[in-house]
């Protein structure tokens, strides 16, 4: 009789321990990713974004993204996005202070009106400039934004990857979970699958052409996002990656936003 109780109990407990173990392992992988990316200080990169619709018609955006690393653990990075192309949006700038679980602080600068507008950041799942990238896909990776879980290890190309599941803990996410392939050699994200609010596969993002900077920081120079539900895709091509250009908080202030070029 006792056997009938104890056996299932052992099973449940061992499953729970294993689940705890996979959560712990998932968290450790994310923390190691984060640790390896610490200390870059500030960066600037030029970005060419090609949007392609189902009929194969494409349009292009060009922008620059400046990032300021915030050393405190409970503070996300600050980022400034400046639009260069198409010309009708040239000079538009977007300033974002990433938070961990709180809503981000965001301002938009409209050059024609010389107007700086504080905007709502509730629109995390909305499309970034009409692309297949949502606003939440463009913000910096912060460990605390997700609940983590290691799923398995498997080969990814010539490398071996941890397959991990990230469940957003912040509000207004368009995803129930993201499944990511992180290579064991350098802890670089190789692929992400995004699952929508109905838990169906929505998008796949593939990272390509990684390059190491300052002997430490790996940056993909190409990203390809495919939306499986609409057939649309967006390609990001990064160039002119620069680090430690001497940017500080004064370059990422609301007051400086109308001076940005």
């Amino acid at each position, binding site marked *: 009789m006792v056997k009938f109780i104890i056996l299932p109990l052992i099973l449940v407990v061992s499953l729970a321990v294993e689940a705890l173990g996979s959560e712990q392992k998932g968290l450790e992988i994310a923390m190691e990713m984060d640790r390896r990316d610490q200390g870059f200080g500030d960066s600037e990169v030029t970005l060419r974004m090609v949007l392609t619709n189902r009929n194969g018609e494409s349009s292009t955006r060009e922008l620059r993204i400046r990032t300021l690393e915030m050393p405190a653990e409970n503070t996300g990075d600050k980022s400034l996005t400046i639009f260069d192309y198409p*010309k*009708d949006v040239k000079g538009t700038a977007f300033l974002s202070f990433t938070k961990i679980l709180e809503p981000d602080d965001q301002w938009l600068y409209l050059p024609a009106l010389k107007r700086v507008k504080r905007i709502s950041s509730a629109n995390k799942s909305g*499309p970034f400039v009409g692309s297949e990238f949502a606003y939440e896909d463009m913000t910096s990776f912060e460990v605390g934004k997700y609940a983590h879980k290691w799923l398995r290890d498997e080969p990814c190309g010539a490398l071996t990857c941890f397959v991990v599941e990230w469940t957003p803990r912040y509000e207004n996410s368009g995803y129930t979970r993201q499944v990511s392939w992180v290579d064991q050699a350098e802890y670089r994200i190789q692929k992400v699958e995004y699952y929508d609010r109905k838990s169906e596969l929505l998008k796949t993002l593939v990272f390509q052409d990684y390059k190491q900077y300052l002997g430490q920081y790996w940056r993909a120079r190409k990203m390809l996002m495919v939306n499986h539900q609409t057939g649309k895709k967006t390609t990001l091509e990064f160039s002119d990656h620069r680090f430690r250009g001497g940017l500080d908080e004064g370059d990422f*202030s609301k007051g400086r936003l109308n001076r940005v070029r």
Partner: protein
Amino acid sequence: MSLMLRKSVSIVAGGLLASLAGLANMDARAGEWDVAGSVAAETRIFPGSRSFQGQDDSVFSPSLVLEPEVVYQWNRGNDRLTFRPFWRFDADDPERTHGDIREATWLRLGKGWDLQVGVGKVFWGVTESVHLVDIINQTDNVEDTDGEDKLGQPLINLNLENDWGMLELFVLPGFRERTFAGSRARLRGPNPVDTDNPTFDAGSEEYHVDFAARWSRVFGDLDMGLSHFNGTSREPRLIPANDGGRVVFRPHYDLIDQTGLDLQYTVDAWLWKLEAMTRSGHGNRFGAGVAGVEYTFYQIGGNADLGLLAEYAYDGRNASRAPAVVSDNDVFVALRLALNDEKDTTALLGAFVDRVTGETFVSLEAERRLNDYWKMELEGRLSPYVPKDGFAFGTRNDDFVTLRLTRYF
């Protein structure tokens, strides 16, 4: 603008152009040039007939607009010259055919400060229906009736930013007069405005030096600004005068002091907004305020966003001693639609209703990118209900739609 001031603005611009040309001959590696701009063809469409003898009665009123921009940066981008002239050639209104220097500035960026000298534009405020605290630039009234277009303002501007927020300090040497539609044009009312004979409180007229300052700070979800302006009012009083047998309005520009407050509280998909000001110099001291809210429904039917706006505007001025204002006791409601498509299609439909007289204005704006270089815009300015003593009685037949095609380069 008087000939003298026009001359001095030209000298400033000419000097900047000359220094730009001089810099062009320097080693190209020393700095960075950027030439951009736009040219636009538009037509206004007036479905109604003219109200007054002498006014143009054509349905279509075409116009051509040229707005180039030349920027030169050096010293790692910490020094910047910007030159942005503007020209409009209008088929029907010689007053609307005009040029302006929207911007001609030298900007120096420092750590925690910046200094800007030249002719420039500054926007203050948060609300959408009326801009009570925005006071640095004069309205370029012939451009549009919404008051969003501004003339370049001569200025010396020092900005200081620190933990206590941002302090903007302005010396404004030189005044720009408001533009008004000519006597043969639509949108002028029963009596044309005689812009050649303005009068001023200030003895030095348009050379009076104005001062302004604004302190602003972000407190978490709250953005706040406090400002003060001392100088010649951008809004003229229109004084009836006899001009060889016909009645004209002559603009009079009073000296005023205006203190303003602007607040925006941003939480979830809500924007709560307030602007308030108090002014002396236009009769007894009075106050005005506009408060409202904007709520956005995100991703309705796919990727589109729909914003709902509602604002209430009050103005306590005495109409006999201060410039007339439409938003004395008015409710503004609007819908803002953004499709978030690859063409950046957006539309805004708004209505302004006077709570006492019922006078109503309707405004529609829509735009869509055609390709990487072309953009199409539609604007409608309608007054569906104007009572006999209404603000827009003289322009009640001047409802119009503007179609604009812009090429960017």
